[in-house]
């Protein structure tokens, strides 16, 4: 028999939040290990940081920023959903305002750099 249908926005938001959380949890120990090199082995850290010029590493960093952004907005969404007794239209306006503000600030940032 067919698998249970789940592809509705609320469930997709839920699973994106979970998967981004797992991805970040897997990344963090590695991140802290690299940071620890700054204290223990500066030469190894410098050698490691040259890797960040590689396209593949840049792509991975983009993915990381995506995970962080998705997880942060997922968390804000969840807190608003559970702790604020908003009506559906208020939720839509809040989501639109947040994404609009995020869009404008990213444009500003991209022009600045």
């Amino acid at each position, binding site marked *: *028999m067919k698998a*249970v*249908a*789940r592809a509705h926005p*609320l*469930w997709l938001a839920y699973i994106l939040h979970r998967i981004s959380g797992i991805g970040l949890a897997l990344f963090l120990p590695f991140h802290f290990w690299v940071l620890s090199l700054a204290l223990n082995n500066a030469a190894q850290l410098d050698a490691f940081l040259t890797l960040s010029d590689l396209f593949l590493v840049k792509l991975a960093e983009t993915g990381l920023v995506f995970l962080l952004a998705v997880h942060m907005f997922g968390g804000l969404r969840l807190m608003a*959903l*559970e*702790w604020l*007794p908003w009506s559906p239209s208020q939720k839509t306006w809040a989501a639109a305002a947040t994404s609009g503000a995020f869009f404008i600030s990213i444009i500003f940032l991209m022009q600045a750099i």
Partner: protein
Amino acid sequence: MSEREIISVTVQRGGPEAPQYPQVFEVPAFESQTVLDVVSWIQQNADPTLTYRFACRVGMCGSCAMMVNGVPRWTCRTHVNKVLKGGKIEIGPLRNLPVIKDLAADMDPFFDKWVAAEGRHHPTLSRDDAIAEIDPEQPARVEASLGIECINCSICYSACDTVAGDSDYLGPAALQRAWTLYNDGKDADKDAILDAVSGKGGCHSCHSMGSCTAYCPNGLDPLSAIAGLKRATTQRFFRGRAK
């Protein structure tokens, strides 16, 4: 006479006494045909041993819900042409409930949890008192009114992945009922309701996946009702009990 279109219907058969297996039926298409019409046609014309449940046929009684192409639906008000995929439909018993036989699911766990969530009236007055007036515009009453059209069809319970993963979880319908009573001015024991929904398997087990709200055939919003219970139980935790 033009040749009638044929729908290929895969029905899940069997139950605890026989292994479950899919069986394919060829059903003639009719105008304005519902999924329940299809199931009834099979039972009346192809296999009289097919077991399923229905009563009102107009979306009031909540007894005909089944899985249709992986989505829990009220079959009496689901038109075939809305769910037909390449001339085929798959129909199974509701998920997250034990199967009695074929398409009939055992609703006992669903209703047991309705009781466990304290989904019963706690009177403020006796029959000798005058009937208290309730303002329909009052905010708590407006909130309560949002949930009273539940027909106990168990579609939300069947759609919920938290129910699938946690057999103790009370489920969206029972929790929405608790939220409705919590906001009811004529209910005298709010603490009993919050006690019932704040323990193991209560409102805090909800992961806000929202399948209950997405699939409720009556357009109700159990997700927001459960969020209301989360706020109410947390407020009570910090502010203390009313009495």
